[in-house]
């Protein structure tokens, strides 16, 4: 099988993320691949279907920059702060472009990734019953247990064209190790056709750690070394969450112009991370 290769973030994004692709950037508060998201904006990708359980400010930035025409998600907010203003502006006023949404619950999204990672077309769960999501979301259906006759909920697998995650370490062979809260990243990588992993550093050999998850180099496509690539999210053992940044984002993103100048100053003129 093809093995992971190393590349610069700009080169990796240019290779793996194309206009119109279905792209999942995952990371559950911890290890969110912000730098990779910024590089996607910098390369002016458009027409993306963005997938993520918890779209937060990195997706607010991608949506505000006009990279996405569809969002598949289960919770879109600025954790502990409030609304995602760019996300709201896109849904409420089609700015800068209309944003189609496919809305699920966390349980549904998690199971959709599990189905993708398992090579299954769908997953079954107890979920959504009685909610208005059932009528609004075409990718929620019922399925009957062939043994008990009980009616349950089915959701289709998520199979991103590319999944992007941030991890603490890669070794020289492109194997990847992450630890701490690892959320749904393993499933998101295994569900995708290709995977880009940004890492804090490259080490000669992994030190086994409690709770560590290792992704072998034969399920990773590219590794880009991007220290601090999760900021303002954090990488356990390397950085702490920059909570002020999340608070500042509320003001920056509230207004279209202040957002645009932020993109110009902090993404476009900033150059690669």
């Amino acid at each position, binding site marked *: 099988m093809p093995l992971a290769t190393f590349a610069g973030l700009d080169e990796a994004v240019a290779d793996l993320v194309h206009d119109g692709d279905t792209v999942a950037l995952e990371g559950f508060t911890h290890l969110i691949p912000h730098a990779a998201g910024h590089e996607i904006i910098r390369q002016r990708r458009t027409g993306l279907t963005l997938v993520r359980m918890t779209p937060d400010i990195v997706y607010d930035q991608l949506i505000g920059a006009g990279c996405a025409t569809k969002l598949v998600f289960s919770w879109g907010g600025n*954790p502990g702060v409030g609304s995602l203003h760019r*996300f709201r502006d896109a849904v409420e006023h089609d700015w800068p472009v209309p944003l189609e949404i496919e809305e699920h619950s966390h349980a549904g999204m998690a199971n959709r990734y599990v189905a993708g990672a398992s090579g299954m077309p769908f997953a079954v769960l107890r979920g959504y019953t009685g909610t208005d999501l059932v009528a609004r979301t075409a990718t929620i259906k019922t399925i009957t247990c062939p043994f008990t006759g009980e009616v349950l909920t089915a959701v289709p697998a998520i199979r991103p064209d590319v999944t992007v995650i941030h991890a603490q370490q890669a070794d020289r062979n492109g194997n990847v190790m992450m630890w701490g809260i690892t959320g749904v990243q393993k499933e998101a990588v295994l569900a995708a056709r290709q995977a880009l992993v940004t890492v804090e550093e490259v080490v000669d050999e992994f030190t086994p750690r409690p709770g560590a998850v290792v992704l072998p180099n034969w399920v990773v496509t590219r590794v880009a070394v991007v220290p601090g690539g999760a900021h303002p999210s954090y990488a356990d053992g390397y950085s702490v969450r920059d909570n002020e940044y999340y608070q500042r984002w509320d003001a920056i993103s509230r207004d279209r112009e202040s957002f645009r100048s932020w993109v110009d100053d902090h993404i476009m003129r900033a150059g690669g991370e």
Partner: protein
Amino acid sequence: MADWTSDEMMTVAAARALYDGVVCFVGIGLPSTAANLARRTHAPNLVLVYESGTLGAKPAHLPLSIGDGVLAESADSVITVPEVFNYWLQPGRVDIGFLGAAQIDRFANINTTVIGGDYEHPKIRLPGAGGAPEIAASCREVIVVVRQSRRTFTDRVDFVTSVGFGAGPGDRERLGLRGAGPRRVITDLGVLEPDPDTCELVLTHLHPGATVEQATEATGWPLVVRDDLAVTEPPTGAELDVLRALQAGAGGRQQTA
């Protein structure tokens, strides 16, 4: 003039609703504050489950996000997000789920999705479901914590994100929802509980200083007041000390680490 705020009263009342030794599914914000207050006062053996995958977290300070490092470090076990929902929440292993709401109706159905306009172009696009629909369905019981106002307490929610009692008695059973549903709704004015016969939320407690008129005014349906309406015990000095210490120290480690 009370030496505590209505938000402090609300948080203390929410903490008191957690018995010692129960397993509690906690969201960030007030539920997390209340759960950590309970763990430091009357419920030292409360088991906190955060959807980020931390089972039995014992944070030394209030986490500012669902995925704070302090949750992982202090947890009995850190598991994946699919496992949280499939192995722990879905089978009914969680006793109490804490939920907030942008809108809640007379049958305790919750909306955190859209308000006004139509679904594609709502007047207000809210964050959405998160873990709430399955928390509301699968936890043995649910506690809702939300400030009371006519905008929030609506006769019918614009969108049912999480099911309380649906359209009334028998609906949860018809839908096959396994948990008992909302046991109480704790607000800044008092406590509402579902009437055993009608499932409609009725006023059962007022917090000290709050009046029936205020509660009625802040409710978008004709609010039934229970005959045995009680007054909540005010926060004790000990409760306030712990709560304020918690909030003063919130995320402290995050900054200094």
